């Protein structure tokens, strides 16, 4: 399939074209490609739970991998690095609150079990950091330290975030 033509701006003169050294090498990079193939699906699922939309999650994960690729030569822990990039991208996205509200509840629509739907709705109502902490701890199965690393905070803060999130989720489904 032919690649879509780049979007042409009304005033093309003011848009800086990528310099040659900024254009990513398009030749195959077996290590990176293998890492991408192995890890992208799970990161998309994680991002989906955080932002509430598969389509947005796929876009954010693609963006994150662009950044991972840019530093591929110096990254020593690619899994943690990519996870952090994805969580950062999700959090940046969630700061756009109107879109966040707009996409709320769409995730739960595809789930059959009533309590799961209620939990996913309640999850969508949590503040973004609490939501990310819950997803990383209880979906991705990360330790408190790994979660703290992905969220760029102290491990103790993760405990506090999860503590408050679980209390809110319990309240929501017991109402």
């Amino acid at each position: 399939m032919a690649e879509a033509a780049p979007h042409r701006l009304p005033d093309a003169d003011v848009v800086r074209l990528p310099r040659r050294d900024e254009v990513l090498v398009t030749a195959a990079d077996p290590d990176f490609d293998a890492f991408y193939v192995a890890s992208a699906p799970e990161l998309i699922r994680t991002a989906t739970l955080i932002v509430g939309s598969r389509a947005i999650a796929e876009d954010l994960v693609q963006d994150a991998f662009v950044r991972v690729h840019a530093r591929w030569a110096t990254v020593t822990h690619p899994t943690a690095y990519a996870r952090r990039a994805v969580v950062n991208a999700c959090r940046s996205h969630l700061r756009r609150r109107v879109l966040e509200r707009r996409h709320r509840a769409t995730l739960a629509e595809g789930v059959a079990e009533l309590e799961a739907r209620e939990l996913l709705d309640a999850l969508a109502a949590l503040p973004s950091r609490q939501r990310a902490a819950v997803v990383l701890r209880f979906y991705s199965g990360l330790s408190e330290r790994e979660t703290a690393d992905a969220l760029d905070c102290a491990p103790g803060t993760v405990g506090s975030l999860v503590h408050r999130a679980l209390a809110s989720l319990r309240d929501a489904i017991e109402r």
Partner: protein
Amino acid sequence: MDDHDDFEARLTRALHAGADADGEVTPPGPADVHRRRDRHRRRRVVAGSAAAALLLAGAVTAGWAAGRDGDDGERVVGGPSTTADERGDPRDDGIVLGSGEIPTVVPDHRSSLGGGSSASDPGEPTDLPTAVLFARTLDDGTTLEVRANAYDPSSLDLPPFWDPPGGCYPVGDLYVSARFPDAVGQLATGRYVDVAPGDLRGGIDVVALAEGAPRWLAVATVPADVASVVIRFPGGGEDSLTAVDGVVVLTAPVTPGLFDGPADVHEYSVQAGDTEVEMLDDAGAVVASWSAPWPYFSLGEVPVMGAGCTAPTALPDPGPWQPADPAAAEAAIRTSWEVMYGDPTGRTLEEQAAVVDDPRNLSEGLESIRSRYDAEQIATTTVAIEEIVFESAERAYVRYSVDAGPLGTFGDRFGELRLIGGTWKLTRHTVCSLLGLGGYRCPPVDG
């Protein structure tokens, strides 16, 4: 399986169901990643304009005012505690230095550390105290007022024996209130110290959207060796500034064509490109330059792993000077710990305060421990010391865990005790760290 394990299991099942709700995940191939950066994509974002948010909400948050017209017909934009008294003498480069002392605050959900405000989330006004660092006036009359506060170090939940490298965590908040000739806007981000060479830490966003006059606005802390910063915003707008107290604030109009106007007022599209940054030293030599795809505005947005920002998960090694009777010292530590976190029945608030090294303004927090002990969900909570290490004969670090029953278990937490007047006392940081786990924020000692 007890109740909280069961709830977590149900939650995990719900998350897995949600993750797969849209069917199998089939991401595009790696080649798409390789091509992606070369394309100018349309990014859908929500208005980064604080003015838009405030105007559309039809409300002015307490302590803040932002809008087109004030009572005297002029535009109004301000931060909390903005007073003329805080302003200092003007310089000849459009900079007016602030003269107020930067206030110490306890970070909360409104602060950068709490995650409420952030680099790309300028619509989050604060009523936390701030002081003016400086105000910048541009030739077109635009004024950019930069305000700051500092977090009370004792309120940060970090291991007491660990001093994170600069740049890992914000030490306060930075706010920019921008007044353009035809619009207003604001931006919030974290304030850092000891930013790594070659990096900067800050925020960038589009503001003044509601007025139909979008501007790029950026504020950042720079490394010590950087005297000035030149920025080229996505699309081509440029600005530069000599750093003021290690901080730069930069702005430029969003290039026509880059912004397609709001689909609704909260939502618009930008042909996103890279932000190019050049950092210069005193002699005007470039010490670092890089570009990052918007909305990123830091090499540290995704910090290089192993840079020392991850808190330790084990106690440090014992120090060279140990208590003569370590068993007795450990017993005394556990006794003090029990006074603080054991059953408070029969103990007075004063007795508990006596095992804290600095209990000023802590009575409310200590009372919350006592009252919560009686609450059903806290009655089963235990705070147990797992390990003790003596840094010296007069200072000990402990690793402890919190079992909060149905609310979960929190392990690998760290505390510190000091031998003062013959009693091992928990440090204020240790007490406040645990109170923070329950959502209580200790006030500053002099607050």
